[in-house]
């Protein structure tokens, strides 16, 4: 019956209801029937009693009159046997009971005289006899007395109950029979319903193979058939859907395996990391590069499996906003790889990235090729320069000897000899000029080869294009003087800084200016430097012959020169502008020219403003409340200092700047106070990333570095500082609670809690060691030094250029440091007197190729 359970509920309730209704009906019916019977019998009793009483009354007249009691007694006893008669008694006219059927005595309640002339009926309750219907019939209209007949009402009640009970019994029997019948009929309806519900349950479990064997034509049958057809439709629908899902799944699987196959077959190594620098994907090439084989490294920290160079890339990519970062990484088997890291963004609006993607390519072969190329360039350079030396050198010696020893010996009157002398002088002049041009060409070719191969060395730093332009204009002044050409320089005020190699940028400007001068006989060349959007725009406007539109597109190509090379003598190597383009492109700028033939031409080039290094970084960082900065004046002073270094106006006597890097604000404050009291200028950064930008921007004399910091820890920061040529020299003092501080790559380490004396001593020692960076003066005009690269390495941020006579003023004012004297000045300058000043060291700078 378990399957019937849904039916039993209904059945039980129905049963209960039917039972109650039926019970009520039965009770009412039997009650009513019994009642009507009762009423009927009561009437019958009454008429019966009346008949008896009257018959006695009529028959007793004589007896009463004779007062023969015994005769009366016998006649009434005779009636007692009739059903329902309870008692009979006769009274005389004096109300004396003459005869009665009571045993033993007549109850007193019946003794009163009614005095009625006619028969009367009343219902009374007689003690000991229960309810009785007393019928009173007068004898001779009451003259002779009364006959009382008592009918037993109790008997009627017994009948009533008997009938009621019997009826109930019969009805119950009928009811039960009905229930059995109902039960079976319900069963008959319930079975198909149960079947249906089972069927529905199987359908719900997507079992469309289920069969249902209901064949009846009734509603249940209809329902069953509907359900069956529904299930068939569902089954078809499901089948279709399943097919679609399977198809889609198959497609997804195929796509996935296609992508997986791509990743697995990538010739480059691929590493994907999440935001916590944990590995999420490594492809086979990557495993091969780093000897990981079948190691399960997914989910582990990248630093467990990969070298430092790659890990720092993984770390630095986290703070990358756009673009890529690259690094060279060592691979297994002494190979070298180039790693390229970018961030994963799900979509551009998202704040946080999903991690980083790092591609590693084996560049061992390329490096070898590169080395070969470099060696080739070096060899060619040697092999070309050596014969050029002989050609040029001997020619000059010949010219000298001829002019000094031979020509004076000739006959001054010989016209022939004079002509020969003139010719020889001309010829030698041509040999010298051509040889010099050839040398220049070799130099240019080597220059552009170096740049194209990426071998050129760049000394990038913050600089002002105004200064570069000024130097360049100064250095072409000699060329102008010969020709009556004037150069005017217009530099916009408060020009933003750019980031680049000053000597190379001077090379570009000098090239453009000398080109302009070359093609002009007289007039004004205007050089403008101004800001345009996020670039600094430099323009050189000449009033020369201009460039025809047919030639304009090709002027930046190698060995292209304006003009007819067959008729006009080429001036220069044809590599000047391509070199300019190389340099400008390398700086992230553009170079182009506009010209109208006969009206002069204008050369433009742009350089991106050094946003990362400008005040923007400081401002945004301050907004983030991450840098604890000193008073505004300090910042201004520092910036003034930076400007001074750049413009090289005068030597700077400011106290050394210390950059304190610590994420604990209170410790940062403490160190700041400590260093300030010790007479230093202080800048505080709260993590490695900020430290990097501040260090690049302000080039501090020393950095104290905490190791455990958010965003970028000390170790990564030191690594970055060391790999940047501009911050590499800055001594780093590690201040940390960790005992393995020495391994972090700093120059020295101090353990927390900090011992003030020890800290200051270490700082001073580090600063002394790097004293060479304190100050240095270079004699002469900066523009004449195309080679200040070496100096920027030796004295990274304190170079002052000054004319020889001003040096004495500086020295007398107490300058301490290095004075670099170019070798060609060494003879004309009183070195001995200079070196007598205490604290002043004099160094002769080699000249050589730089004054070619």
């Amino acid at each position, binding site marked *: 019956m378990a399957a019937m359970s849904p039916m039993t509920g209904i059945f039980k309730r129905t049963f209960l209801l039917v039972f109650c209704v039926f019970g009520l009906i039965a009770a009412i019916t039997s009650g009513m029937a019994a009642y009507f019977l009762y009423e009927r019998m009561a009437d019958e009793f009454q008429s019966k009693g009346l008949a008896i009483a009257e018959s006695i009354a009529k028959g007793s007249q004589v007896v009463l009159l004779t007062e023969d009691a015994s005769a009366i007694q016998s006649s009434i006893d005779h009636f007692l046997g009739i059903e329902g008669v309870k008692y009979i008694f006769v009274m005389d006219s004096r109300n004396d009971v003459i005869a009665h059927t009571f045993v033993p005595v007549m109850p007193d309640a019946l003794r009163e005289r009614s005095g009625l002339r006619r028969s009367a009926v009343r219902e009374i309750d007689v003690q000991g006899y229960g309810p009785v219907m007393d019928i009173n019939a007068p004898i001779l209209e009451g003259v002779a007395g009364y006959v009382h007949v008592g009918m037993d009402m109790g008997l009627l009640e017994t009948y009533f109950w008997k009938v009621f009970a019997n009826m109930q019994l019969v009805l119950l029997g009928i009811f039960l029979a009905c229930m059995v019948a109902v039960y079976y009929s319900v069963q008959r309806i319930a079975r198909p319903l149960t079947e249906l519900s089972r069927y529905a349950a199987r359908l719900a479990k997507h079992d469309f193979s289920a069969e249902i064997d209901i064949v009846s034509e009734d509603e249940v049958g209809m329902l069953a058939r509907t359900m069956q057809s529904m299930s068939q439709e569902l089954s078809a629908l499901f089948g279709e859907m399943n097919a679609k899902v399977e198809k889609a799944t198959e497609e997804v699987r195929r796509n996935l395996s296609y992508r997986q196959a791509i990743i697995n077959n990538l010739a480059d190594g691929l590493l994907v990391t999440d935001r916590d620098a944990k590995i999420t994907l490594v492809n086979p090439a990557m495993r091969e590069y780093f000897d990981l084989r079948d190691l399960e490294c997914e989910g582990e920290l990248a630093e467990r499996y990969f070298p430092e160079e790659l890990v720092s890339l993984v770390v630095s990519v986290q703070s990358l906003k756009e673009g890529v970062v690259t690094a060279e990484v060592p691979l297994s088997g002494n190979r070298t790889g180039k790693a390229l890291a970018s961030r994963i963004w799900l979509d551009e609006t998202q704040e946080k990235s999903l991690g980083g993607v790092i591609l590693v390519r084996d560049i061992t072969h390329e490096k070898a090729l590169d080395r070969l190329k470099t060696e080739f360039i070096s060899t060619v350079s040697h092999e070309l320069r*050596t014969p050029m030396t002989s050609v040029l050198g001997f020619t000059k010696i010949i010219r000298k000897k001829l002019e000094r020893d031979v020509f004076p010996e000739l006959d001054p009157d010989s016209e022939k000899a004079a002509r020969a002398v003139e010719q020889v002088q001309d010829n030698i002049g041509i040999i010298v000029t051509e040889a010099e041009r050839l040398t220049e060409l070799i130099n240019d070719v080597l220059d552009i080869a170096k740049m194209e191969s990426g071998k050129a060395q760049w000394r990038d730093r913050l600089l002002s294009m105004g200064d570069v332009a000024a130097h360049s204009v100064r250095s072409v002044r000699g060329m102008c003087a010969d020709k009556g050409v004037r150069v005017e320089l217009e530099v916009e005020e408060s020009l933003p800084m750019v980031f680049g190699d000053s000597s190379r940028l001077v090379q570009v400007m000098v090239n453009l200016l000398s080109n302009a001068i070359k093609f002009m006989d007289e007039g004004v060349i205007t050089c403008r430097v101004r800001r345009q959007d996020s670039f600094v725009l430099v323009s050189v406007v000449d009033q020369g012959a201009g460039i025809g539109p047919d030639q304009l597109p090709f002027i930046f190509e190698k060995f292209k020169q304006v003009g007819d090379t067959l008729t006009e003598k080429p001036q220069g190597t044809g590599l000047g502008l391509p070199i300019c383009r190389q340099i400008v492109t390398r700086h992230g700028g553009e170079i182009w020219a506009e010209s109208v033939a006969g009206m002069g031409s204008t050369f433009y080039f742009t350089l991106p403003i050094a946003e990362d290094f400008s005040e923007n970084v400081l401002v945004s960082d301050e907004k983030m409340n991450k840098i604890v900065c000193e008073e505004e004046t300090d910042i201004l002073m520092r910036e003034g200092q930076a400007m001074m270094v750049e413009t090289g106006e005068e030597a700077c006597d400011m106290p050394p700047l210390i950059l304190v890097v610590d994420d604990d604000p209170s410790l940062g404050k403490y160190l700041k106070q400590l260093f300030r009291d010790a007479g230093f200028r202080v800048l505080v950064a709260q993590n490695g990333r900020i430290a990097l930008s501040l260090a690049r921007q302000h080039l501090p004399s020393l950095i104290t570095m905490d190791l455990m910091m958010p965003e970028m820890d000390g170790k990564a920061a030191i690594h970055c500082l060391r790999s940047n040529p501009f911050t590499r020299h800055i001594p780093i003092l590690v201040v940390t609670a960790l005992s393995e501080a020495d391994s972090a790559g700093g120059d020295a380490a101090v353990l927390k809690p900090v011992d003030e004396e020890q800290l200051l001593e270490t700082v001073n020692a580090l600063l002394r060691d790097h004293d060479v960076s304190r100050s240095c003066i270079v004699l002469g005009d900066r523009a004449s030094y195309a080679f200040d690269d070496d100096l920027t390495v030796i004295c990274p941020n304190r170079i002052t250029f000054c004319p020889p006579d001003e040096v004495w003023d500086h020295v007398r004012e107490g300058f301490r440091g290095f004075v670099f004297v170019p070798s060609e000045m*060494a003879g004309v300058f009183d070195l001995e007197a200079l070196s007598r000043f205490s604290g002043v060291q004099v160094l002769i700078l080699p000249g*050589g190729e730089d004054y070619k």
Partner: protein
Amino acid sequence: MSKKILIVDDEVHIKMLLEQTLEELEDEFEVELFTASDGEEGLDFIRTEKPDLVFLDIMMPKMNGYEVCRTVMEDSELKHIKIILLTAKGQEVDRKQGLELGAKMYMTKPFDPDEILKVSKEMLDL
């Protein structure tokens, strides 16, 4: 006492060029010129004769200019000798390396004979 200038170069022409250039000093001042054709020969000469000024080529057989320069600078008796490195190599590394080794100057080929004369005069205090 006459001053000694040594020219060390494996290229005959360069040697000749330098010799002819410096002959002028020989005539004018008390200067003696010597030549050597490779690094070893040059070093032997420097050890025995202790010249005042050496023009030293870098790329040479047997012993290159850097080695010669280093050996000379490490020898306390020879340290005072002024060395001018001459080479066609014009790359940064070379220049730095040369100066770090203690050479007084670094001249790249091709050079101007007048420049050589001028420099020599300065170096020899003539």
